[in-house]
């Protein structure tokens, strides 16, 4: 699997940001990219905020799988509060814009579905 992702100067950190509702399809695309990158040994971090957060309870299995694969996942607490969700609903610790900034700052590449 790793050979599919080989690149001579391949960076090691990929950050994916999602802020759109599930019907846009971005959440599925983001999960697919994250799984593929993680399978290649890339360090993947994902930040979810705004309209994307309301759909996360229905995607707990995907989130758990990615976390088990070593992906760093963070959810905007303000967006979760606006959606009436807590950590127990999403299954992830809630974070904030500092997580967003840290993930983007550390990344070699950023893919933003915003």
């Amino acid at each position, binding site marked *: 699997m790793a050979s599919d992702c080989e690149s001579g100067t391949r960076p090691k950190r990929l950050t994916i940001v999602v802020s759109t509702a599930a019907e846009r399809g971005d959440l599925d695309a983001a999960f697919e990219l994250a799984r593929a990158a993680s399978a290649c040994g890339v360090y993947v971090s994902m930040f979810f905020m705004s309209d994307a957060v309301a759909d996360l309870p229905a995607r707990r299995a995907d989130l758990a799988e990615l976390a088990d694969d070593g992906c760093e996942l963070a959810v905007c607490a303000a967006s979760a509060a606006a959606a009436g969700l807590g950590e127990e609903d999403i299954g992830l610790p809630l974070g*904030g814009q500092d997580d967003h900034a840290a993930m*983007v700052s550390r*990344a070699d590449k950023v893919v*933003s579905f*915003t």
Partner: protein
Amino acid sequence: MILVVVEAAELERVSEALRAGIGLGLRGDDVAVVLTGPAARLAGGEEVDPRVARALRTLAELGRPARVMGGGELDAGTVDAFMVDASIMGRVRAVEVWTSSDAGPRRLLVGGREVEVDARPPRFRSGGRAIDAAELVAQILGSDGPVVVR
């Protein structure tokens, strides 16, 4: 530099985008925020929503005021030109484009190539053929410049 392009038509998404634009600077990165299209009209009118006005004021106070593109700048061609302007994009390492929730099909621009992103599998398509996620990851990781999703 991190570039945040706000082109959404919904007030809520414009407000969220500006919040992201403020937050992305928390680790000391250089962040530029540009409002265009419907978002520029929302931010540039006479009665600006208080949340948007506050966020714009905060960005200005932080010494990195948002650029609100107006008048003749508002056509999409100008935005595209801005996005590929080498003097700007050469310094940009990450791009967030905040679109309207009902915007058209997604396009992912990576290394001079355009990838269509579909809500249903096969999710990624380039040059008329489907590409799998691992191939797209390799393109992203091997590319020069930022990845832009619009």
